[in-house]
């Protein structure tokens, strides 16, 4: 990842100002203002680069208001990577004006220290399972993310009883002496699949442990020998906020933690994590371990679609599928989740119009820009309603949290689940909530 002005200039020079980026920018379709679409964001960045103006934060809000979903790049004749440009812009902004202290603390001190992060989350949630946003509030997370706490408040309904990592022993994982590594051994005759290193994403661990559990059980059923490493955050959150250094620090730290482990593929159920892990080679161009790891990374839906899971006959349940940006657009994994739902899950798939439009979750965007996030979400929920499907499936925790929130707001009884959770359920693999 070149963070120099050459990259920015090369990207900007390909913007013909044709405006075709307006077609599927979820934010633009809500606000219909030029500053809030790739063309406007890029021209704002150009003004910054050319030193045309005295820049203040309100004017630069469009840099922070971008979902980074990448839809504009697909529509762009010149494939201008506006999302990458916005990350650079944020980075430059913080370099100029300084990063908020709390943000810096989270990215540099909390995320690289999973023990500390876990303790904090546990402390605030124990006894009073009040939901992630109030946890976030207590952690001071929201203070820098958003002044409009109320809007963010309802995002998460409940906190799970136990985090995924706490559940590993119950799932049959054992730990070799003196390490934090957890192994789930299979009998040799069962181990027909690849050796999988399972990467637990933060959102899955804290908020959707049942999803991770489902993933692990499915992999096991498919003959994979699963190892869980004591990884920490993949680095995507700081990177999204333009703190590339913190992202690099996290990636390096992860590489150290994973060093020496025996595995064929690194797998995660979080579309965001898998997309970012695949980009580690760019993130750490001088670290050969990053390249090796990136090449071995698979999203769980990608891998499961290749493995031989028993096929189920149609159960008549209708499902619609939302493509997470990081999985679909970024990794090109769009067919596999659908194939799994239909072939392995026996669902009847009803295609969602604008299935690949961002739901507004976008990592912590729903906390940083709650109002915009909800308006983006409203369009998604309308489209989901139009399908009439009984179940909503997707493949990224951020999307699950966001879409569940939208569904709850409309008082629907429609489950919003990760593909693998639905599959596990259809295959009778019990998953604790």
């Amino acid at each position, binding site marked *: 990842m070149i963070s120099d002005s050459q990259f920015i200039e090369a990207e900007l020079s390909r913007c013909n100002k044709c405006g075709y980026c307006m077609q599927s920018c979820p934010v633009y379709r809500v606000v219909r203002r030029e500053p809030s679409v790739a063309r406007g964001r890029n*021209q704002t960045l150009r003004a910054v680069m050319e030193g*045309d103006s005295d*820049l203040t934060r309100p004017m630069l809000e469009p840099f922070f208001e971008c979902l980074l979903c990448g839809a504009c790049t697909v529509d762009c004749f*010149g494939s201008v990577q506006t999302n990458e440009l916005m990350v650079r812009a944020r980075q430059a902004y913080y370099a100029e004006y300084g990063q908020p202290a709390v943000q810096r603390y989270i990215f540099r001190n909390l995320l690289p220290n999973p023990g500390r992060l876990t303790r904090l989350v546990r402390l605030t949630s124990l006894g009073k399972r009040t939901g992630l946003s109030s946890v976030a509030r207590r952690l001071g997370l929201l203070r820098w993310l958003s002044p409009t706490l109320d809007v963010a408040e309802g995002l998460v309904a409940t906190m799970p009883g136990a985090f995924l990592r706490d559940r590993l022993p119950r799932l049959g994982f054992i730990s070799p002496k003196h390490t934090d590594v957890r192994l789930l051994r299979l009998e040799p005759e069962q181990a027909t699949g690849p050796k999988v290193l399972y990467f637990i994403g933060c959102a899955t661990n804290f908020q959707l442990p049942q999803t991770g559990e489902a993933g692990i059980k499915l992999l096991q059923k498919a003959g994979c020998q699963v190892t869980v490493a004591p990884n920490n955050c993949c680095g995507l959150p700081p990177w999204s906020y333009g703190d590339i250094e913190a992202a690099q620090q996290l990636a390096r730290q992860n590489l150290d933690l994973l060093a020496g482990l025996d595995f064929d593929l690194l797998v995660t159920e979080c579309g965001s994590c898998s997309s970012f892990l695949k980009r580690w080679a760019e993130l750490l161009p001088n670290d050969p371990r990053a390249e090796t790891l990136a090449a071995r990374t698979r999203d769980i839906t990608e891998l499961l679609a290749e493995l031989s899971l028993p096929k189920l006959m149609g159960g008549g349940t209708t499902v619609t599928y939302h493509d997470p940006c990081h999985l679909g657009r970024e990794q090109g994994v769009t067919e596999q989740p659908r194939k799994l739902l239909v072939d392995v899950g026996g669902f009847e798939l009803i295609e969602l119009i604008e299935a690949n439009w961002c739901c507004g979750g976008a990592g912590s965007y729903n906390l940083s820009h709650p109002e915009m996030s909800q308006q983006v979400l409203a369009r998604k929920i309308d489209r989901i309603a139009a399908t009439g499907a009984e179940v909503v499936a997707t493949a990224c925790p951020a999307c699950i949290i966001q879409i569940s929130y939208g569904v709850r707001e409309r008082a629907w009884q429609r489950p919003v689940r990760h593909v693998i959770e639905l599959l596990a359920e259809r295959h009778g693999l019990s998953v604790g909530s």
Partner: protein
Amino acid sequence: MTSALADQLREVIPAEGVLDDPVQLSLYGYDGTLYESTPQLVVLPETTEQVAAVARICHAAGVAVVPRGAATSLSGGPVPVRGGVVVAFTRMDRILQLDYENQRAVVQPGVINIDLQDALATPGYFYAPDPASQNVCTLGGNVGENAGGPHCLKYGVTANHVLGVEMVLPDGRCLRTGGKSLDWPGYDLTGIIVGGEGTLGLVTEITCRIMPMPETVVTMLAIFDSLGTASQAVSDIIAEGIIPATLEMMDNAMIRAVEESLQAGYPLDAAAVLLIELDGLPASMDRQVEQIKRACQRSDVRDFRVADDEQQRALLWKGRKGAFGAVVNIAPSKICTDISVPRTALPQVLAEVLAIGQKWGISIANVFHAGDGNLHPLVLYDPRDEDQARRVRAIDEEITRLAIAHGGVLTGEHGIGCGKRKYMPLMFGPAELRLMWQVKEAFDPDLLCNPDKVLPDRDEITESEPLLLPEGSFTQVAPQVAARNEQGWFEPVDEEAVQKMLALAHRERQPVVVRGAGTKLDPLADDVAVISTKCLNHILAYDYENLTITVEGGVTLPQIEEAVAYHGQMLALRPRFAQRATVGGILAAHESGPHRLVYGGPRDLVTRIKAALPGGEVVSFGSSCVKNVAGYAMEKLFIGSCGRLGAILEVTLRTLPRPEALRTVALSMEDPMVAAPLLAELFASPLRPAAIELLNPLAGETVGRVNRQWTLLVGLEGFTEDVEEMVERLGAMATEHGLGDWRELDRDYLALWSDVTNLAVQPAGTAILRASCQLSATTTLTAELNALDSAGALRASPGLGLVHCAVSGKLELRNYQSQAQILAEKYGGTTSWLALPPPGLATLPPPGTSREICRRLKHALDPHSILPDVL
């Protein structure tokens, strides 16, 4: 100043809808071109009232307003070249009404074209104009630029589909033109506003036509080894009598660019690929495809592919849709030029375009609408290289001049904007430019609306040569200019004589009327001199491959029919008195017959008009190009003006291949209301009858009515199989509605319909009132009008929302009209007498801004009111 203005605007627009931050302002200073200019302020209104308030404030402050949609424009149109306030319509994005039974949609200008299409798709309707940017461009922008698109070959451009607008004038007052029903009194202001590039006012609401989707679509791809043979194939396809929905071509440079980035399956060494799409009824599709294939084979097609399913169709389109994007991989940037030439000139123009590129050492790739002669040479270059940029500017100018040299126009669909203003004198003389300026001033006297667009600076326009006229009174001089016939009418023999007659009348304040064949004659005041165009009866040019014919104003339809018959073509204009009426008269009266249903009216068929004005100037607007958005669509002003603005000297009209089969079927019924549900179903179906008329018992005599019953008459035209299928399906529909059997009328098709159109049962000279209404109300209005005067013949066109009533001698006309008017208004329409109305009975545009603008236009063109004036 600016901040005071901002404060004022914030009083009428929610505060966050007024932008004044310099960086944000700069984002409203560009479009899809290289032109840039920062506005003083930007407003994002959400209602018409807000727009009006903004206009009032700016008008009072003397600040310019510049309308802006999605700013995908390729002409610099929305760039605020003189600063001012940009009025961005992106938040006025509500679809106000989807009125399927009347086949109309009412939308705010910020609605994105594709959003309207998506909303229409589920019930199976569509809005025809589909510009390449339809996924992002707004309908307001489409109206401003009179946008086209691949499908306009068959369906026409935005001007053919927009029936009315609401517009805030630059002084803040509101103007409404047209509406859901057709043929409103007054000049065709809608026709001028569409394509007015936002220089006449701020359009705040659009009423447009929507249509049931075609039942079948077939997409074909033909690959050729030379551009010449590909162009020949295009001509041959049309010579086969086929008008495809689209005919798109790409040249070798474009093919290579597309293959490099998209792999659409085009051979790299092919000289041209032609993308052909047919739509319509399934019955004739196989044969049409076969005919197209044969036409291509005659031109040595290398490969001919037909898409079998949606996936293959998408693949064939993939290259075309991705073409603009593909070139980005060849060069950092491009300029997309836009010219339009008669289709016959295409091969030559293409060759010269490539030569221009070679001369300047710059690559040019071509992708174009081959069917209608609209080219978009993409000039590929690196804008950071100043020398390349200089050469590209030279190329742009040479390509523009090339179009003019070949009888083409400055712009086919992108608009003049600020980029091509300087070229306007290439296409228009000083008289035309001055007249366009007068139109501009009629709407925007203070020149505050999108200034410095479209028209070249006024002081750059040269003076015209004064016309030399002998001294003396009208009575003395006129006989020297033109001879008089036995009725005492002046019969000028040529254009110049007409010009002199009008100039003389103007100088001497002599009231005159211009007459064609006199089919719409009404009593004349004694002091009025008559100028007959009878001697202007020459056919000037017939370009059968371009499907256009140019004739003088006094030419009659049979003359044209004779001329075009040899090439198997026709002029799809079948008004009253088609045997005698002159083209000039037909256009002036905007006369059309029942077949307007499928072919459109004069407004849709005319591409150019040359007229003599009372001041003695001769002006020509339009061209023989089907697609032309250079300057205001002034030709539309003369259509339906009833000779109040000038004398029509010359007209260019679109011809069409003559349909293979022509059949008429009829159904009888006691009560016209019985037909209503059948008609509703028919209009919602993909069947496209050529004409549908409901005749009262008296009118029914023309076609041999049964007993004393009403007759529903349907004219079907097209390929034999399609007509056959329509007859069958109509039969099934009627049976379902319990209406029994259609009987086929064997009389000569055109003669039969001519009698119907003329209401031939009436004695000559009977006054005919035309009532309009929304489509779905036609039968009801028909029944009610019939009750007003059961002794008169009446024919209704339920597909057009028009009813023609011959008023029987027993009734007093004024009284009759006022009763009919009340009925028509109830159903969203109005009434008017056909052609020049009996004295004192003309229907006026509604009082207010619309009438005022019409009056200003009249004054601009005919300051001494020597021509009839009813305003």
